[in-house]
């Protein structure tokens, strides 16, 4: 099998292609069906063969100016016109404009008797005439195998079919031949052996009550093509094939940062918020506020005047808008002015590829800068694990290439490990915000942390996540010797701490006062002792004075006595004499 990624110019030279105009199919085939050659489209009943063929013709006529001939062996022209009218194809108008010819070939076996040699020249002539009448470049034969029911002579029929495909090639028309899938063969009558250039197989499977349509290019001679099975859907815009797996990892990473809508979460994400075009996963158990947080992202996007697509799988638009009103988000104004589109669908409404295509359509049509899928888990219920992961990878790839920021919520079960998401998506996710229940002291509180965030320094701390009537608030949780506390336990702990602080403050105050008192006492004692000391000193002074006075008197008395005795004073008395002269004099 050849590989998808091959140089486009190489294939272009190798084989001219006729674009189908069908979304996605041209990507897989590298430009369309082989020009001027027949292509076999086969599949079981109801898998969309006729529609694919019709869309190929109608788009060819409208978009590529290549008129077409639709030769139907099963449905009348009127039936065909009615069938595709719901897709907006007006076949009658196209016929009037001579861009399309519908030719219904009716074969009624009961009316026909084979009486000898014959050929299908009549059909050739009709086809030739139809092609000539509008200058058709494209031809559809739907379903030519019906002929086998109409004629008994298979040998003639097979020879004629071989001739027909040869003839179509010679005419240079790009033909699509549809065939009913047979047992063990691509078509019931094995006509794939006549059509060797391109074979497309359509498949319609039902898995767990959900149908998925798939398309695979079985063969494409002379051209590289995608060999995978590609899911496709049929809706009001026709067929869309999703060749998203062909997208490589070569998207451009934006440097631009955008806000999450919650300031403190921005702060946790390196202070600037998310990178544009990154993929955010918000996971958490039931009721942890995933939708509320996702709605904040949406609100922030609308505030930046950027369109946001919100895919709700659990709530209707009005319920969603109402509920978000309760946390202070007025989303109604965004839905009114067209910045926010809420697409609410049941996850089981469509198969996986249906959801993917619908996202694709919405994105192409609405051109949002932010897409929210809420919740991813429901989205992925619509299929098996492997398919779900593949589909999610496609979705994320697609959003990345379009530079659209993707926000996904994911419900996890509290019984499992916190980091265990339902789908192994973690490797695809750039920013993973985890919301969790913290059950403590008889109450549940919400905690939030950033599990990972590529390309930026992010906070590793758990925050308490509060939903208030004016929005989301983040609080630092109490982390102390008693562990992580939240909610009223946090409040209680905080008040306990507050009380302890007050007590400590009071204690200090008391000690200070005590010390003060001590100082005062000490000072009083010091003052007292000083007073005593001074009193003693005073006393001593008095005593000294008294003693001096007493000494003077003694001397005076002695002098007086000596004078009275007329005694010689001697040197001792003579030297003192001047001092006492006054007194002596006074006493004279």
């Amino acid at each position, binding site marked *: 099998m050849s590989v998808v990624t091959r140089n486009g110019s190489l294939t272009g030279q190798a084989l001219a292609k006729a674009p189908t105009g069908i979304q996605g199919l041209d990507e897989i085939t590298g430009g369309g069906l082989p020009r001027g050659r027949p292509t076999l489209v086969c599949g079981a009943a109801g898998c969309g063969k006729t529609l694919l063929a019709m869309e190929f013709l109608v788009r060819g006529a409208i978009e590529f100016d290549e008129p077409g001939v639709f030769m139907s062996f099963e449905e009348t022209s009127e039936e065909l016109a009615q069938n595709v009218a719901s897709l907006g194809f007006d076949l009658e108008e196209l016929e009037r404009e001579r861009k399309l*010819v519908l*030719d219904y*070939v*009716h*074969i*009624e076996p009961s*009316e*026909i*008797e*084979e*009486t*000898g*040699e*014959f*050929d*299908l*020249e*009549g*059909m050739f*002539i*009709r086809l*030739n*005439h*139809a092609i*000539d*009448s509008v200058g058709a470049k494209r031809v559809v034969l739907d379903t030519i195998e019906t*002929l086998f029911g*109409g*004629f008994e002579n298979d040998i003639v029929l097979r020879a004629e079919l071989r001739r027909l495909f040869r003839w179509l090639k010679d005419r240079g028309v790009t033909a699509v031949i549809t065939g009913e899938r047979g047992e063990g063969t691509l078509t019931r009558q094995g006509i794939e052996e006549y059509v060797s250039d391109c074979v497309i197989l359509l498949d319609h499977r039902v898995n767990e009550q959900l149908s998925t349509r798939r398309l695979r290019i079985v063969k494409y001679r002379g051209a590289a093509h995608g060999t995978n099975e590609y899911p496709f859907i049929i809706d009001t815009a026709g067929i869309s094939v999703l060749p998203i797996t062909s997208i490589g990892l070569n998207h451009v990473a934006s440097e631009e940062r955008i806000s999450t809508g919650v300031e403190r979460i921005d702060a946790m994400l390196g202070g600037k918020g998310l990178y544009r075009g990154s993929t955010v996963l918000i996971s958490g158990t039931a009721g942890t506020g995933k939708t509320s947080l996702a709605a904040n992202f949406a609100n922030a996007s609308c505030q930046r005047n950027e369109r946001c697509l919100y895919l709700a799988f659990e709530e209707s638009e009005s319920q969603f808008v109402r509920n978000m009103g309760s946390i202070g988000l007025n989303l109604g104004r965004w839905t009114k002015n067209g910045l926010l589109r809420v697409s609410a669908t049941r996850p089981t409404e469509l198969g996986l590829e249906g959801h993917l295509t619908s996202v694709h359509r919405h994105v192409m049509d609405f051109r949002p800068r932010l897409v929210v899928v809420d919740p991813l888990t429901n989205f992925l219920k619509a299929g098996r694990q492997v398919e779900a992961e593949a589909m999610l990878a496609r979705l994320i790839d697609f959003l990345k290439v379009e530079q659209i920021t993707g926000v996904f919520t994911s419900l996890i079960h509290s019984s499992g490990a916190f980091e265990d998401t339902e789908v192994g998506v973690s490797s695809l996710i750039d920013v993973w915000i985890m919301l969790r229940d913290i059950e403590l002291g008889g109450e549940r509180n919400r905690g939030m942390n950033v599990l990972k965030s590529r390309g930026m320094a992010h906070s590793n701390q758990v925050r308490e996540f509060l939903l208030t009537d004016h929005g989301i608030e983040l609080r630092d949780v109490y982390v102390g010797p008693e562990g992580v506390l939240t909610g009223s336990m946090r409040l209680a702990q905080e008040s306990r701490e507050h009380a302890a602080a007050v007590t400590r403050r009071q204690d200090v105050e008391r000690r200070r006062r005590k010390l003060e008192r001590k100082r005062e006492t000490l000072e009083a004692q010091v003052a007292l002792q000083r007073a005593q000391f001074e009193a003693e000193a005073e006393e001593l002074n008095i005593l000294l004075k008294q003693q001096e006075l007493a000494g003077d008197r003694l001397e005076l008395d002695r002098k007086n006595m000596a004078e009275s005795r007329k005694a010689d004073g001697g040197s001792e008395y003579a030297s003192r004499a001047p001092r006492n002269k006054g007194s002596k004099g006074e006493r004279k």
Partner: protein
Amino acid sequence: MTHYPDDPKTLDQLSASGANSDMNRWQLRLYVAGKTAKSVAALENLKRICEHHLPGQYEIEVVDLLVHPQLAKGDQIVAIPTLVRKLPQPIRKVIGDLSNVDRALVGLQLRPAKS
């Protein structure tokens, strides 16, 4: 080349002769594409059968689709040659060169009528 898809005039002309004929009137139309061996054989076989079974009450028209390709759609012609019994009703179709006379008679519902 005439207009597509149908040229009502031609069809009217073709069926005009049989429009008011009685039940015994057989109107047969043989579609061929050019003068191929099969076409020639078919016409010869048809004439022989008619002369034998329906002397004097039949009418054969030969439509060459190479000349009037638009007529193929009206009678839902796929195989060539195709003989269409326009009258008596209902319409019957016999394909092939009519070399198998028995089958041709069954196809034209001449056999039960004859026996």
